[in-house]
């Protein structure tokens, strides 16, 4: 049995797999800027849920921003490699993956074996990441999980011009004061994010099949908009796009042993 942990700036994700790569247990919790505690909790949850003891685990792989914090002896792996590995396992037809996390977004081109061919990432600016949506939805007092359905059902879209998440927040508050509907404002924000993500992807190359991974891929409104800007179908990694990195990490340690 093997465990893969993806310790991100927003969430910490863990999976437990068997020798055939089957997922026995998985867990996602917020990191809360405390990767030590979060990863410790993940380990506890994974073992508890699958009824397995720590010494039965043959290998521990960790990846993501907080990868060094996993409190057991582990192998540290590059997130880019893990995402490619994970998506290749889940969907072997994938050649392009767009991963949107809390504080990064990246586009990876991979071959049929899951080997990374090229990649681009933005981890400088909140406007290209999950935090953008988080900051705005907080300002609008809308729970993050409701954003997608609100946007999908919105009748109109309010244009948001600020490129910066902090300024967009001010702009959004001004729109609210002007009486614009919340769903229209959110639609504008999602549009803004989708457009910039599609632009990064196109600067690289977009080769079918294209998949979305990362926590933000759970937002189907976002996936739909990115797809529209790409002019290609964007699939969402299944069963859970947020687990792709952790799955890749687990697969790597499985391979190495």
């Amino acid at each position, binding site marked *: 049995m093997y465990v893969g942990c993806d310790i991100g*700036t927003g969430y910490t994700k863990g999976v437990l797999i068997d020798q055939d790569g089957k997922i026995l247990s998985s867990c996602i919790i917020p990191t*809360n*800027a*405390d*990767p*030590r505690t979060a990863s410790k909790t993940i380990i506890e949850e994974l073992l508890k849920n699958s009824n397995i003891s720590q010494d039965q685990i043959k290998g521990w792989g960790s990846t993501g921003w907080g990868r060094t914090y996993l409190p057991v002896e582990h192998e540290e792996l590059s997130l880019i490699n893990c995402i490619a590995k994970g998506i290749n396992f889940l969907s072997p037809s994938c050649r392009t993956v767009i991963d949107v996390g809390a*504080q990064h977004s990246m586009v990876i081109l991979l071959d049929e074996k899951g080997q990374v061919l090229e990649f681009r990432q933005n981890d*400088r*600016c*909140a406007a290209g990441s999950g*935090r953008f949506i988080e*900051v705005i939805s907080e300002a609008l007092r809308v729970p993050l999980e409701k954003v997608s359905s609100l946007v999908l059902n919105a009748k109109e879209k309010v244009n948001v011009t600020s*490129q*910066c*998440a*902090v*300024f967009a927040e*001010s702009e959004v*508050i*001004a729109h609210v*004061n002007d009486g614009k509907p919340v769903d229209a404002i959110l639609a504008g924000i999602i549009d803004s994010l989708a457009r910039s993500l599609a632009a990064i992807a196109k600067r690289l190359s977009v080769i079918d099949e294209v998949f979305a991974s990362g926590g933000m891929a759970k937002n189907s409104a976002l996936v739909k908009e990115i797809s529209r800007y790409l002019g290609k179908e964007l699939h969402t990694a299944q069963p859970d796009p947020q687990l792709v990195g952790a799955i890749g990490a687990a697969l790597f340690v499985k391979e190495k042993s």
Partner: protein
Amino acid sequence: MIFAGCDVGSLTAKALLMDEKENIIAYEIMNVLPNPVKSAEEIMSRTLKKAELRLEDIDYCISTGYGREKIPFANNNISEISCHGRGAHWVNPAIRTIIDIGGQDLKAIRVDSKGELVDFVMNDKCAAGTGRFLEGIAKTLNVSLSELGPLALKGKNPISIISTCTIFTQFDVMHLIVEGADKADIAAGVAKAMAQRMHKLVRKVGIKKEVAITGGVAKNQGVVKYLQEIIKSEIYQFKDIDPQIMGALGAALFAKEEYMRKR
């Protein structure tokens, strides 16, 4: 005679009244209301009250800042860049370079010996290096904005801030706190990062002494300290006047000038 300057920013609104001899009668600073016109009316009302004057007593008023064309009681409006340059130069005619840190922008202004604009550059695309940046960090550190400067000065080992983004930096700070880092060292690191940001911008117009900082952030002694270290020279600090009032002050001076010209 009474001349007025009104400066509505993204975070604060300012107004200043002076007489024909350029004596400052009164000035006030307040947080903005959602509507810039309402902000201008409110700040002007407060300033007039402080001076025991009425709106009708004002002979000429110039407005500047956000929504300046919409201010109903202003006779005219002038860009905040010109107003900041003029105001700072009037306080100290030796000033040639001004770094103005607004709520949501960062400007570097070069003036000549007469206080007229030579060059300027602005960053208004990214919150890093603006008042919002410090505001966010103060919140994360659980201190008020005015406490951030003294806290930064206490920091002996400024922690290197890697992220350039305001939001990411807030996250980094949260993490540093979890890892037990000293808050003063964090505040110092943030002040240093801010100073580096300011330096990067002001380089584009060329740094010529005397250098002054205007806007609320000028009061953050941590930022001043680190900027002085980077440019290897003293920064002129406003002693008897609030650095945040420079825009309104410049506007009032322009008001007097324009009035005299039109007479």
